């Protein structure tokens, strides 16, 4: 596989996904059905947008999500896309907070809910943490696959573009 050629060709896929997710979260008030049943998704207090081109300008927003909304929309209107965001996932069994870096799909600083394990059984503790991160990865993949279904369909993707421009204008 020509990894580098594919990577450069589809480099914007992750940014496009986060921009789609931001809009989904905004229009559903966090009840993103694509994330699974009883799961709420929120954008937290840090977010980075990047323009296109060889040396694109980047802007980082920090603060309350509501207060950054208008500036973020202005950045999106100028053609920038979200490349990194702090996200919050709420499920009946706990809350996850993490930063998703979409260019290389790196999950940073994932804080997982404290289980009932007291730390004396190291193996159980490790397996619990691994299970939780796998659960998170699976939720992210579910959302990404939902976006990808639209992304690979010319008609659906064109409609998405139109609805995003209507939402943002």
């Amino acid at each position, binding site marked *: *596989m*020509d*990894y580098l*050629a*594919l*990577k450069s*060709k*589809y480099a*914007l*896929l*992750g940014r*496009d*996904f986060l921009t789609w997710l931001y809009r989904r979260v905004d229009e559903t008030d966090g009840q993103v059905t694509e994330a699974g049943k009883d799961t709420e998704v929120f954008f937290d207090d840090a977010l980075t947008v990047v323009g*296109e081109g060889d040396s694109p300008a980047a802007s980082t927003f920090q603060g309350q999500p509501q207060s950054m909304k208008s500036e973020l929309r202005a950045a*999106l*209107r*100028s*053609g920038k896309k979200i490349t990194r965001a702090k996200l919050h996932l709420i499920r009946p069994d706990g809350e996850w907070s*993490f930063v998703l870096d*979409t*260019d*290389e*799909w*790196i*999950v*940073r*600083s*994932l*804080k*997982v809910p404290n289980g009932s394990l007291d730390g004396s059984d*190291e*193996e159980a*503790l*490790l*397996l619990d*943490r*691994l299970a939780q*991160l796998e659960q998170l*990865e699976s939720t992210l*993949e579910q959302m*990404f*696959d939902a976006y*990808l279904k639209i*992304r*690979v369909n*010319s008609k659906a*993707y*064109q409609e*998405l*573009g*139109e609805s*995003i*421009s209507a939402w*943002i*204008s």
Partner: protein
Amino acid sequence: MGLKTGPMTWRGFQTMNPQIMKELDCTKILGLLEKNAFRNPEVVDGEVESHGFVVFDEILTTEFDANSEKTFVGSYVIFSYRRDRLKLPAAYTRALVKAEEAQAEEKKGSRLSRMERTAIKERIELMLYKKVIPSIQVADVAWSLTDGTVRIFSGSKGVVETCAELIEACFGVDLLPSEPFVRLLDENYDDAKLLKQALPAPIYIPALLNAE
């Protein structure tokens, strides 16, 4: 950053060689980890950095065989990667070299030749490298033997890359980073199709707004 405690940062990779995975058993894995275990840089041979694997969460331990219960956890192989770099304090090194040169010139009674200066510099550097405490970077690795996913827990791009390269060399596998476009390969796209441009052009919001 690590797997054991605190917030976790990781990058995922997919093992591309199911056949090699099938052939790996516990004894082979432990043997290969031990073969690629961390060792201190050989300063006398001019090495100023070194990397290798250590037992999970124990940066000083490389006896994998004796610690197999820490390495095989459920269906995972868990170990740590350690990278050491020796770096001399530049100002201190310069000052020592200068002082040594002055002393040698006084003893000789004339200016030192270029070769003599180089010899002094190398001697001082070797003496300091033997004493200096290395800067140590560590990344935990969790390799799922069920689905072949390798997760490297580190926030440093450089550490993740060198660790992935060492895993590839150690086990003879190819690791594919789990990046967004890789999901397309699971959606019945092969790389030849993807190289030809299988997807519509990405949305560019300013163009859509201007078209309205």
